[in-house]
Each structure stands twice: as structure tokens, then as C-alpha cells.
């Protein structure tokens, strides 16, 4: 199997980021999917740090690329800014071109991304599946969510 796609978890909360990563590791089984967390400014201060996200992207890029899952607001802007900072953290020049910022929901998307990555799928598949991660819940709940 080729090298797995790396996954970066971006959240305002370090506790939330770590717990979400723990959930993801539950589904990867024995597969070696690299997951890095860039969440919070420190253990307790909420916020996102673009340089830390750039470093996390470098950590998990083994050549197959990286899919970044993020919560909301500044997490999105910081993830985009991180792509501009990859040079600053010594990234392979090819890393930016193989890093995808995924619009999927953080928790559901992360679990799906990890599961998909563990099968050896490429980054486009991992990101697309994660972006569609609300589908099963939406289908299960049917029309009831809009009542």
C-alpha cells in the first residue's frame, strides 16, 4: 500500500481537537494514518494558530498529501493562512499542492477521513468522503430534523 494521506485537526479548543483525534484513531484500526492536532493557543486558551497548523501539515505529509479538517470561523482563515506559511516552517515545496482544506464537519468529517485514509485512498477521495460526512446522519434522521 502507498503511504497514507495525512490528516490535520484544527480547532479552537485543544481538548476538542485531541478528543476528536482520539475518535478518529478508533476507526483507523491497525492502519498507520498520521494525524496531527493544531488546536487552541495553549492547553486552555481558545484560538487557532496558523503557524502551528503549517507545522502540523508538514508533520503528517508523507508524500500522499494532507487533508485538513477544521471547526469554524478563525479556524478556516488560519488554515488558509497556514498554506502561505509552509515555506516558513520548512515544508517540501510540493506540500502546498497536495494539501486540501476540507469543508466537511469537524467530528463526522474527521472520522470519515480517518476511515477512508486507512484504506489507502488518495487525498481527493479522503477529502470528498469527509466533505460528504453528514450524509448518513441526514439520511437516518430523514425529514425530522426540519420539523
Amino acid at each position, binding site marked *: 500500500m502507498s503511504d497514507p494521506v495525512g490528516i490535520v485537526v484544527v480547532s*479552537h479548543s485543544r481538548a476538542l481537537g485531541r478528543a476528536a483525534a482520539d475518535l478518529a484513531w478508533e476507526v483507523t484500526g491497525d492502519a498507520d494514518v498520521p494525524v496531527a492536532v493544531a488546536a487552541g*493557543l495553549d492547553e486552555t*486558551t*481558545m*484560538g*487557532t*494558530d*496558523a*503557524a*502551528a497548523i503549517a507545522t502540523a501539515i508538514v508533520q503528517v505529509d508523507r508524500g500522499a498529501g494532507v487533508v485538513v479538517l477544521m471547526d469554524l*470561523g*478563525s479556524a478556516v*482563515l*488560519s488554515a*488558509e*493562512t497556514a498554506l*502561505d*506559511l509552509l515555506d*516558513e516552517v520548512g515544508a517540501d515545496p510540493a506540500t502546498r499542492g497536495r494539501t486540501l482544506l476540507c469543508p466537511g464537519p469537524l467530528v463526522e468529517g474527521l472520522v470519515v477521513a480517518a476511515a477512508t485514509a486507512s484504506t489507502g485512498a488518495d487525498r481527493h477521495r479522503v477529502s470528498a468522503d469527509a466533505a460528504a460526512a453528514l450524509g448518513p446522519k441526514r439520511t437516518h434522521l430523514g425529514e425530522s430534523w426540519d420539523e
Partner: protein
Amino acid sequence: MGGLRVAETVDSAALGRWLRAFADEVSEHADELTALDSAIGDADHGANMRRGMAAVVAKLDGAPDAGPAALLKSAGMTLVSTVGGASGPLYGTLFLRMATAAGDREEFDAAGFAAALRAGLDGVVARGKAAPGDKTMLDALVPAVDALDAALSDGAGLRDALRAAATAADEGSDATVPLVARKGRASYLGERSAGHRDPGATSTALLVNTAAATLG
């Protein structure tokens, strides 16, 4: 008017004075910025900007001889890592783009400074994907940069042009009060975001006012 005190260039010392003055103003107005943010956002803008600008000042203290590009880049990198909220990547991008515009020059002339600020503005627009009228920092920054360019084109000196920019930023910030937010956390409130001044436009007005007070 300004006589011998007027400087038509902006060097590292001037940039340092500007950033320190902005840090002081942000700190002084932190509670006010947070109060504005608690009305329509997540009540952290003042504290976030105070933390970020304090970190910028600490970096300035540690690298007193940095050239304009290095100084602006350090400020930008520090803000993207320490502010925490959306203002981090937005203000950070502003300074990082200004750093790129500075290149290897030792100082900006008036037109060069205005061009760098324009490059910073373009970076904020690209990052935030907002437009004037969305009730964001752009509602202060766009009129400020436009006023700076217009005044310099009319032959004004840097100091007077920056004063015109500061007035435009204040007016732009004031004009956010009735707007309905279309970007950021405040946009979740829809019509209820009207009637409150935008915190990002308010801090941007402080940025431009401190430029007018310290540069030129």
C-alpha cells in the same frame, strides 16, 4: 504646520513606533472592543488583540535592528500565532503582505508606504473574502487606504495624507453601526447585528489613527 518635524519617509524606527502605539491603544480600548464584540460576536476581540499586540511588542524589543520587511513580517507571523480569533489571520496577513511589499528597502517613501498598505488591504480582502458594507474591518480599512492614496495624489504630505486616512477610517467605523453583518460570527445574528459598531472596524480605526500619530 509640521515644519521640521515632518518626515516623508517611514523607516523601521517609525514602524516600531506605530506598532507600539497601536498596542497601547488596543490595550487601552480592550474592554471597549470586547464589549462591542460581546454584542454581536464572541466577546474576545479586545483580549485577543491585546494579547497579540503585546507579543508583537515583545518581538520588537528582542530585535531592535530589524529592517522594515523583517519587522513587518515578524509582526504578521506573531499575530497569526497569538491572536487566536479571525483577527489573527486578517491582521497577520495585512502585515505579511506589507512585508513582502517592503522588499529589501531601508525605508518607505510616502507612495511606497501607501502601496504597501494597499497590498496589505488586498491581502485582507483575499483572506476574509469580505467586501465593504459587510460590517467588517474593511469598512474602515478600504476608505482609509483610498483616502491616503487620494491625498497623496493631490500633493499632500505623508502626515496630512495619514490624517485624512484616519478621518476616513473613523467615519467608516462609525458607518458600520446600522449595517447588518454578512461575515463572521456576527452574521449568525442577521438583522439583530444592526445597531452595533463593528469591533474589527473599530480596531482598524485605531490602527490608522496611530499611523497618523506616529508616521510622517
